[in-house]
C-alpha cells in the first residue's frame, strides 16, 4: 500500500515538473517568435504565461470571452510550435548555450592557478552568451 502512495507522489512530482518546464518552454518560444504572432495572440500569451493570469482574468481584461481566450491561446501555441519545428531557433540556442557551458568547464579545469587569464576568458564567454 505504502509503495503505491509513494509512486503516486513521485508521478505527481514528475508531472508537475514537466508542466512547469512546458511553461518555461512556451515563454522562451514567445520571446523568440512573439513578434510573428498577431498582437492579440501575443498579448494573450504574455498575460497567460508571463503574468500567470487565469483564463477568466484575461477575459475580463481583454473583453474577449473566456472561450475566445482559450481558443486564442491554443491557436497561438500551435503557431509557436510550428515555427519551432520549421526554424528550430530555440533548439539551436539551447545547444549553443550548453556547448559554451562545456567549454567553460574545460577551460576552468585546464587553467587552474591562472586567475587573471581565466577571468578574461570568462568575460569573453559571457559576451558571446549575451550576443546569441
Amino acid at each position, binding site marked *: 500500500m505504502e509503495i503505491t502512495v509513494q509512486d503516486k507522489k513521485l508521478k*505527481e*512530482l514528475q508531472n*508537475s*515538473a514537466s*508542466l*512547469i*518546464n512546458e*511553461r*518555461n518552454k512556451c*515563454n*522562451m518560444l514567445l*520571446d*523568440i517568435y512573439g513578434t510573428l504572432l498577431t498582437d492579440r495572440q501575443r498579448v494573450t500569451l504574455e*498575460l497567460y*504565461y*508571463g*503574468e*500567470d*493570469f*487565469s483564463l477568466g*482574468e484575461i477575459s475580463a*481584461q481583454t473583453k474577449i470571452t473566456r472561450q475566445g481566450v482559450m481558443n486564442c491561446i491554443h491557436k497561438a501555441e500551435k503557431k509557436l510550435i510550428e515555427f519551432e519545428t520549421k526554424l528550430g531557433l530555440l533548439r539551436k*540556442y539551447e545547444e549553443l548555450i550548453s556547448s559554451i557551458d562545456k567549454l567553460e568547464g574545460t577551460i576552468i579545469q585546464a587553467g587552474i592557478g591562472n586567475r587573471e587569464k581565466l577571468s578574461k576568458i570568462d568575460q569573453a564567454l559571457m559576451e558571446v552568451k549575451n550576443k546569441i
Partner: protein
Amino acid sequence: MAVKIRLRRMGAKKAPFYRIVVADSRFPRDGRFIEEIGYYDPTKNPVVVNVEDEKVTSWISKGAQPTDTVKRLLKNKGVI
C-alpha cells in the same frame, strides 16, 4: 476581493526569471502587487525556488489563492 499568489515574469529576453508575488486579481496589468514572497529561477541547474515559507502560509491562511503553477512549485518545495 480576491487575492492571488502568482508568478510574474522578470528577466531579459530568453533568460526567464520569475518573482512569486501576492497580488489583487483585479489589478490591471501594470505591475502592481502587494508583496513579493519569493522567486523562481529556471535558468540555473538545478532550478532555484526560494520562498519565504511563513509569508506563504500566512497569506494562504488569509485566503490568498495560489495559481496552479505556483501551487505546483510550492508543493515540490514542500511548503504546502
